[in-house]
C-alpha cells in the first residue's frame, strides 16, 4: 500500500470535516469579526445528538435500512444544532456586541465549558461508538491506497455543501444581505437589511454545517466523545486562519490543506526527525500552522483583509 497516497486520502477526508467547521468560523467572523469559540462544541453536540438518535432508532427499529437510520440522526442533529447556534448568539454574543472585545470571548469560553459538561452529564465520559455496521462497508483501491464508501460519501457531500453555500452567499437575497452586513452593518441597516436577522441566520447556517461535520467525523472514526469538539474546533479555526479568515474559499482551501498537512506530517514526522518525534505529535501541526500563518502572513492564503492590529 502506498503510504503517500493513503495519507493524502485520509488527509482530504479529515480536511473536508475541518473545512465544514472552518466555514462556520469564517462566516461568523466575516460578519461580526468575532471568533465563535463555542463552535467546536456545536460540532460535538451535533455528533452526540445524531449518535443518540441513531442508537435509539436502531434499538426500536433494527430492520430499517442503515442509511435511513443514519440520515434520520443527521436530520435531527441539524435543526438541533441550528437552534443551539441561534441560542448561543442570543445569550452570549448579542448582549455584548458593543462591550470590550474580551467580554464575548470570555462568554464564549463559558458556553464551551457549559456545553462540554452538559454533554458529559448526559452521555457520560466514555467514548460512544458509532454503529458503523449501519453504513456501507465497501472499500476501493485507488493508486495503491484504499478508500471506504464512507470516505467517498464525506468527500462528495462536502463538495456539494460547499457548492450550495457559494450559491447561497453569492446568488440569493439572504446572501446579498450577509455580504452587505459584512461590509458595513450600519449602512446595510439603512438599506433595509435586518442586521440582527442576518447575524442569526449566519450562526444558524454555520451550526448546520457543524452538525454535518460532527456526524461525518464520528462516522469516519467510528466514535464520539464529549471532549472532541475542543480540538476539532481549534484545528478548524486554524484552517480558517490558514485560508484567510472571513473568506469562504479560504476556509475550504485551508481546511483541506490542513487535513493533508496533518496526515502527511503524522505519516512522515518519524522519518524526518530520525525517530525522535512520532505520530503522536500529530496534533501540534495545526498549532504550528496557526502560529506560522499569523506570524508570516496574518491575512492567510486567500484573505484580502489583513488582521487588524490592536
Amino acid at each position, binding site marked *: 500500500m502506498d503510504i503517500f497516497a493513503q495519507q493524502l486520502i485520509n488527509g482530504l477526508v479529515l480536511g473536508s470535516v475541518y473545512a465544514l467547521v472552518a466555514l462556520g468560523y469564517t462566516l461568523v467572523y466575516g460578519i461580526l469579526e468575532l471568533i465563535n469559540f463555542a463552535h467546536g462544541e456545536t460540532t460535538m453536540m451535533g455528533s452526540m445528538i445524531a449518535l443518540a438518535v441513531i442508537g435509539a432508532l436502531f434499538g426500536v427499529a433494527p430492520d430499517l435500512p442503515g442509511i435511513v437510520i443514519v440520515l434520520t440522526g443527521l436530520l435531527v442533529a441539524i435543526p438541533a444544532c441550528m437552534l443551539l447556534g441561534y441560542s448561543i448568539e442570543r445569550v452570549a454574543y448579542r448582549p455584548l456586541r458593543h462591550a470590550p472585545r474580551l*467580554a464575548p470571548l470570555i*462568554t464564549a469560553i463559558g458556553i464551551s465549558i457549559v456545553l462540554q459538561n452538559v454533554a458529559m452529564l448526559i452521555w457520560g465520559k466514555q467514548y460512544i461508538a458509532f454503529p458503523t455496521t449501519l453504513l456501507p462497508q465497501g472499500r476501493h483501491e485507488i493508486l495503491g491506497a484504499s478508500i471506504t464508501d464512507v470516505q467517498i460519501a464525506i468527500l462528495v457531500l462536502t463538495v456539494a455543501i460547499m457548492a450550495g453555500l457559494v450559491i447561497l452567499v453569492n446568488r440569493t437575497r439572504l446572501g446579498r444581505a450577509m455580504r452587505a452586513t459584512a461590509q458595513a452593518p450600519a449602512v446595510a441597516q439603512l438599506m433595509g437589511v435586518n442586521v440582527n436577522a442576518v447575524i442569526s441566520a449566519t450562526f444558524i447556517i454555520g451550526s448546520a454545517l457543524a452538525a454535518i461535520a460532527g456526524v461525518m467525523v464520528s462516522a469516519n472514526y467510528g466514535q464520539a466523545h464529549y471532549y472532541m469538539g475542543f480540538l476539532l474546533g481549534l484545528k478548524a479555526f486554524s484552517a480558517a486562519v490558514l485560508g484567510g479568515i472571513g473568506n469562504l474559499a479560504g476556509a475550504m482551501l485551508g481546511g483541506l490543506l490542513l487535513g493533508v498537512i496533518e496526515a502527511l506530517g503524522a505519516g512522515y514526522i518519524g522519518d524526518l526527525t530520525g525517530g525522535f518525534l512520532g505520530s503522536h505529535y500529530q496534533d501540534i501541526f495545526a498549532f504550528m500552522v496557526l502560529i506560522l500563518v499569523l506570524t508570516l502572513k496574518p491575512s492567510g492564503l486567500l484573505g484580502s483583509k489583513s*488582521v487588524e492590529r490592536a
Partner: protein
Amino acid sequence: MNVLDTLTGKAKSRVWLTAALLLLGLVLLPFLVEASLGKSWVRIIDLALLYIMLALGLNIVVGYAGLLDLGYVAFYAVGAYCWALLASPQFGLNLPFWIILPAGAAIAALFGVLLGTPTLRLRGDYLAIVTLGFGEIIRIFINNLNAPINITNGPQGITLIEPMSIFGFSLGKTQDVLGLTLSSPHLYYYLFLLCVALVVFVCVRLENSRIGRAWVAIREDEMAAAAAGINTRNIKLLAFAMGATFGGLSGGLFASFQGFVSPESFNLMESIMILSMIVLGGMGNIPGVILGAILVTVIPEALRYTGDLQRVLFGQVYIDPADLRMLLFGIALVMMMLFRPAGLLPSKQRKREFAEDAA
C-alpha cells in the same frame, strides 16, 4: 507612606491596628482552619495561596496589559517541571531551591518572550487562540518526551520530588518551631504566604510605575501609546516575561509542595480556571484578583459536600460534584460577563470604562 502622612494620629494608629490584626489572622489561619474544617483544608488554603500567585501573574498580562493569554498554564508547567527534573530521582539530581527557583523562573520568562515575540502583532481574540495553541504544544511535548530519550517520564509524570529545603530545614516533614509542632502543609503555608506578600508587593509597585502605566496605556489604545513614545514591543514582551516569571515561580513551588507532577495538571482547563479567577474577581485590581483566586479554589472544595447533600435528598449521587464544578464555572463566566463584566471588586478605572460603554 504619603497616605499615612495625611492621616491624624488616631486614624494612623487605627490603620496600624487593622494591619496588625490582619497579620495575626493570617498567621493563625491554618490553625483555625484545621480546628474547624479539618486537616485537609490546610492543604486547600496552601493551594489557594499558590493560585493567588498564579492569578496575580496572569493579571499582569491580561489585567494590566490587556493581552488575553489562554496558555498561561504552560509557564506554570515549565516551572514545575524545572523543579521536578532538578530535584528528583528522575536524573538523580537534588539541587538547592536557590538555584532551581530562579532557574525555573528564568526559563519560564524565556518561554514568555518566545511566545510573545511572534504574537506581538495580534489582536485580542487571535492572541487568545495562539496562546492556547502554545499551551497545548507545551503539554503535548511534556506528555510525549519520554521516548526515545526519557526526559519528562510522559503521562506517568515525575514522582518523589524533593520538598523545599531551606538550608537544611525541610518543609516536607513535621518540624518543631518555637515549641510548636508544625506539619508540612503548615510550613508550606507560611512559605507561600511570604511569597504571596512578595508578589503583591511587586505588583503594587509595578502598577504605579512607569511600566505599569505603559501597560495600561497599551491596553487602552496601542496606537496612542506608541505615539506617546512608549516602546510597545518591549513593554508587551516585558508583560509576557513578567507574567511568565510568576508562573514559573509558582510552578516550582507547586512541584515541591505536591511532590508529584504530571501533564494532567497543566491542561487548558487550568488556564481557564486561572483566567476565571481574574475575571470573577476584577481584572487589573489586586484585591479583586486575590478574592477571585480564593473563591475559585475554595468553592469547588465546598461543592464536594453537594455529593453528601444529594445522597441525603435523593438517596444517590446524580451529579458527581467534580463535574458540577466545571459546569458552574462555565455558567459563572457567562453570567459575570453579562451582568457584572468588571468583576466582583473592579478597579476604579475598569468600572468607569464599562459604565462608558454602556452609555
